[in-house]
């Protein structure tokens, strides 16, 4: 309670003004914690508990057993696979763009506009993004029409509602997200490191493999994990592109929630959600471990 003691000393000038004791200060945080308890903590607890609870409140393993059924495992595999793939593409392409951006003069107009553009597109995921791609490479899309004279290049009409189509659209927000989260890391590369390497007798190859590479590696892997979690959680984009079957976990959750009252659906939506929580928790634990490792030499 050092803070309080110092304040007492300073406020002593205003003898008439009573000083708030620690407990009263703590009361000030009640609205915040109460609000987040109702709208953040409670729903999370309801998911975890609900995964083991039937409609009537009785304990059930129905949700968990469905979660482990071959069909659901398949859906999870697809989701993990598409997250990893778009995460990888985003990491590579976004990494290159971030590096190119870091080469342009700091504070220049072009760079600022580019960063602003990236931060908007990173948040684009969703219904409108899907429309934009339907307008581009859908049946009547602009690119589809332009490519019509070359049948070999023309996108398949069903492409966008296929998994590869969804993956392509995901890249549209994965790449800019990578640029945004990775830019600070490449901006942190000091020109002195390259010059010191050259000066000591190293080549560009030496610089990239032994200096810049190892320095960037933790944030590169960390960014990949963030992208992975981002794609894994995405719902709106997929919902707007794929209307028929539930091939991804978020879509399956939607249909489970919609058919909650059907026979045999007890606790299924909650179990799926719990599965997602576990996946994201593992990803975030890896992320934290990675950052901790990097902190060994990063101030």
């Amino acid at each position, binding site marked *: 309670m050092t803070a309080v003691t110092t304040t007492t000393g300073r406020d002593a000038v205003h003898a008439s003004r009573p000083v708030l004791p620690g407990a009263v200060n703590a009361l000030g945080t009640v609205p915040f914690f109460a609000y987040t308890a109702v709208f953040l903590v409670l729903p999370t607890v309801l998911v975890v508990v609900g995964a083991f609870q039937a409609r009537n409140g009785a304990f059930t393993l129905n949700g968990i057993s469905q979660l482990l059924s071959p069909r659901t495992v398949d859906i999870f595999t697809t989701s993990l696979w598409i997250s990893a793939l778009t995460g990888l593409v985003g990491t590579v392409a976004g990494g290159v763009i971030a590096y*190119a951006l870091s080469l342009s003069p700091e504070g220049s107009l072009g760079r600022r506009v580019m960063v602003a553009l990236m931060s*908007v597109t990173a948040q684009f995921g969703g219904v409108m993004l899907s429309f934009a791609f339907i307008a581009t490479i859908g049946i009547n899309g602009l690119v589809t029409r332009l490519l019509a004279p070359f049948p070999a290049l023309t996108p398949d009409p069903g492409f966008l509602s296929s998994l590869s189509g969804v993956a392509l659209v995901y890249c549209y927000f994965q*790449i800019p997200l990578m640029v945004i989260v990775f830019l600070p890391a490449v901006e942190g590369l000091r020109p002195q490191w390259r010059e010191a390497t050259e000066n000591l007798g190293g080549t560009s190859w030496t610089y990239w493999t032994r200096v810049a590479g190892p320095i960037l590696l933790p944030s590169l892997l960390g960014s990949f994990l963030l992208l992975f979690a981002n794609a894994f959680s995405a719902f709106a984009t997929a*919902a707007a592109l794929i209307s028929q079957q539930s091939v991804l976990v978020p879509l399956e959750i939607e249909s489970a929630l919609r058919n909650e009252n059907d026979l045999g659906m007890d606790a299924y939506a909650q179990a799926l959600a719990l599965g997602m929580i576990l996946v994201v928790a593992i990803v975030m634990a890896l992320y934290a471990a990675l950052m901790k490792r990097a902190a060994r030499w990063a101030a």
Partner: protein
Amino acid sequence: MGRVRSRGTWFRRIVLSLAVVYFLVPLVSLADFSVRFPLTGKVDGAAWVALFGGGQNDKLNLLTEGLGNSLVMAAMAVVISLGLLLPTMVLVRLRLPRLSKVVEFVCLLPLTIPAVVLVVGLAPVYLVISTKVLDSNTIWLAFAYVILCLPYVYRALDSGLRAIDLRTLSETARSFGASWPTVLFRVLVPNLRSALVSSVFMTLAVVLGEFTFARMLARTNLQTALFEINLSDGQIAAAVSLVVLGGTIVLLVTLDLVVALRERRVHSRAGIA
């Protein structure tokens, strides 16, 4: 050395140009799509006329309802998130530093819990809200949207509060006899203006783009309205998307440039002094 530098310049130009093209093509396509009749490919401004021509039909009513709800919820989310977070963060920094890690953890938590997961747990909560506490009006979703905005608002305020010497500012104001509300509104808020602007903006962007909660809890907001309209009239959906996306980009870029220009002015003034 000179050779290396020009190679770097070309690399940069080519990569950035490709990136710009890749990110602009879908927007251009959206514009094209909105003015082309799907079957014949004829240019036709019907969607735009329908949108801004002042006519009335079911689609437009749905859109108006969705947009109206989204705007009201955005306003509510701004008020609630700032009203909740700003006093709490100031208080924690000044008096309860030991709680700062907890507050940070709670605020960043929504980043790690997918919205589709949260909504599964929110469904029973909203069941209670719509039957026992309030009603089933869409706008009450704003309470949940505050949670989605929490990480962004927290980060904006955090960097804003880091940039000012909160303790000295508030103690100075207090020593001149200011009450806590005066400190908050007349000393801190003006100094946090750019942090507040950016958190308001992030909240707007999140709420106007939200689809998951509204869709799963069967409410009508801008995005679910667009989703429905697209099933029957792709052109109108494309036109509205373009307006929203283009508007967001222009707004954000402008905002960023205004901040950049002001910074530059401050810097050059400091330079002269």
